[in-house]
């Protein structure tokens, strides 16, 4: 208990300097972007005086480190500035789009995890069998193709050629209104509100991007599950169990339980990285989530929006990594921090 407490304590102590370091890095990185946001906002028509006024108003004429201090002060109050492409506070933009990305991520990773673990376990049970060989092949293939390529092919086949999927432009059909917002995730909200038409519509639009995401990520999980299971099935304590005469089903259960930590570790890592990595899939499907938002922000030199997005994504990643480290340290006493 004492050990766990000290682990948690040291890890959490480090959060503050890490977040500070992150925020400084992000802030200065974004300010280096080309394109003058003031001119981008006012257009070339504006006379120099108006440009200077707006620059002063936005605080862009102050030295960088002072701008950083102001930004951090606002951040602590929960104010991430205003996005100029949407004319909304960045925090509102992020709140609005985060559920879209999360819905896609949860479903995609959920399916990847389910399929990956199940098939990984089966193929570890029969190494060298047909299923095993096919999964190896699939793993390598799925990891080798770029995710936007997979997405484009999906749209082409399922929408253009076969006409099976709905149009790849957002989370709902054009005529539909989103359900009353509780979590922001359309599937959940429409069920709560009892709007079954909207539910089916949202589900239909989710199919292709979720499938693309799952197709892309299942490979890694499958591979990890398989190799971990193989290692464990070969280990001493499992062999002891077999010698003693435990039923194969029970052996498998023990094996799986021991295999879970690295699998969970991998999944959490993928999750942490996916928030930023899902960008291209969102772009192909016009998903309207954080990924698409961040791409548009970069191309529009929308300082506040990019900074806000990077802060959010990095902080979520950091927290996920910390939780993972703590969990690992708790589970495995041999791990040194």
């Amino acid at each position, binding site marked *: 208990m004492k050990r766990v407490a000290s682990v948690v304590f040291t890890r959490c102590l*480090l959060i503050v300097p*890490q977040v500070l*370091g*992150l925020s400084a*890095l*992000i802030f200065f*990185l*974004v300010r*280096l*972007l*080309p394109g003058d946001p003031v001119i981008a906002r006012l257009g070339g028509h504006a006379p120099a005086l108006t440009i200077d006024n707006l620059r002063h108003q936005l605080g862009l004429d102050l030295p960088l480190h002072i701008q950083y201090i102001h930004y951090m002060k606002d951040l602590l109050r929960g104010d991430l500035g205003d996005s100029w492409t949407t004319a909304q506070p960045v925090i509102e933009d992020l709140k609005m789009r985060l559920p879209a990305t999360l819905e896609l991520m949860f479903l995609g990773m959920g399916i990847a995890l389910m399929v990956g673990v199940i098939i990984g376990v089966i193929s570890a049970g029969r190494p060298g069998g047909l299923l095993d060989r096919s999964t*190896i092949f699939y793993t*390598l*293939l799925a*990891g*080798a*193709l*770029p*995710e*936007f*390529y997979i997405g*484009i*092919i999906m749209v*082409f086949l399922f929408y*253009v050629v076969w006409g099976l999927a709905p149009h790849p432009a957002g989370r709902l059909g054009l005529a539909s209104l989103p359900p009353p917002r509780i979590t922001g995730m359309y599937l959940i909200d429409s069920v709560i509100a009892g709007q079954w038409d909207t539910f089916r519509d949202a589900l239909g639009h989710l199919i292709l991007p979720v499938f693309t995401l799952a197709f892309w990520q299942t490979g890694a999980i499958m591979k990890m599950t398989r190799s971990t299971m193989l290692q464990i099935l070969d280990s001493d304590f499992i062999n002891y169990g077999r010698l003693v005469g435990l039923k194969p089903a029970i052996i498998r259960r023990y094996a799986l339980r021991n295999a879970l930590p690295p699998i969970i570790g991998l999944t959490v890592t993928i999750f*942490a*990285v996916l*928030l*930023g*990595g899902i*960008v*291209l899939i969102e*772009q192909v499907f016009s998903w309207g989530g954080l990924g698409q938002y*961040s*791409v548009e922000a*970069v*191309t529009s030199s929308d300082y506040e929006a*990019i900074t806000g*997005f*990077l802060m959010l*994504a*990095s*902080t979520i*990643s*950091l927290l996920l*990594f910390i939780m993972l480290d703590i969990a690992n340290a708790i589970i495995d006493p041999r791990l*040194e*921090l």
Partner: protein
Amino acid sequence: MNQVKRVFRGFRKEATYLIGFYKERPLSAFGLFISMIFVFLAFLGPTIAPYNPEEASADFLEPPSQKHWFGTDRSGLDVFSRTISAPRIDFTIGLVATTLAVLAGVPMGVIAGFLPGWRGSTISRAFDVLNCLPPFIVAMCLVAFAGQSILNVIIVLALLNAPLFVRLVRSKVHSVKQRKFIESATCLGNSQTRVMLHHVLPNSLEPVLVQFPVNVGWAILTTAGLSFIGAGVRAPTPEWGSMISIGAPLLITGQWWVAIFPGIAVGICVLGLALFASSLEILLDPTRG
């Protein structure tokens, strides 16, 4: 003379072992073969290409034919020539970026792993912070800032991949440090630096070697992604990602060949690298069959 003979005999033994090794594992052999083809194309691709990959011509949007094996794109550029010229860009970027990442990350990882207590931890934590940044968006920002060029893409990718190697090496160094032979090296009176450089480092490189081709593959995919979104290399440099990006809106108007072929090429290249990496893994540690 005997020395030379002994070295050669050693070579032959190694070669025979390797040939046997790959004969047994057709998939790994395939990976090695693919990787070598792409290295070859990286050197000689543009030379053996039937058409200049950057020269526009009047045959625009032609489907695959005798004249243009993979067809042509909107500017009359030959897709086949561009597909086999792209490894020079993609592969080079992947290779150089990963090498730089290794050169930067490994020393840091060794130091971080070797130093006891909080000093090692701090370096590791600092690199962990870099890990939290969403790599793709950061890459976009950096390339947007520095300008689209091959060199900038390389630098950006190296920066983003270095923390991975730091982490890898650090954990390996940790376990190597515990081994008895390190203890004896210290007991024998070697300085800590010598132990670190001469004993620990060479034994910690194995995960790096295995990870290397995988990382080259990731770098190629990331470059393709950046070019797809317009933040990678400049037009009309032949690069798989930008070719897919040009070809994507052409799928719906029926000119499928512009996007499909480069995508397949990326897939095969990264696949080959991954297979090669897994064969490396087994080679270096035969217990993992």
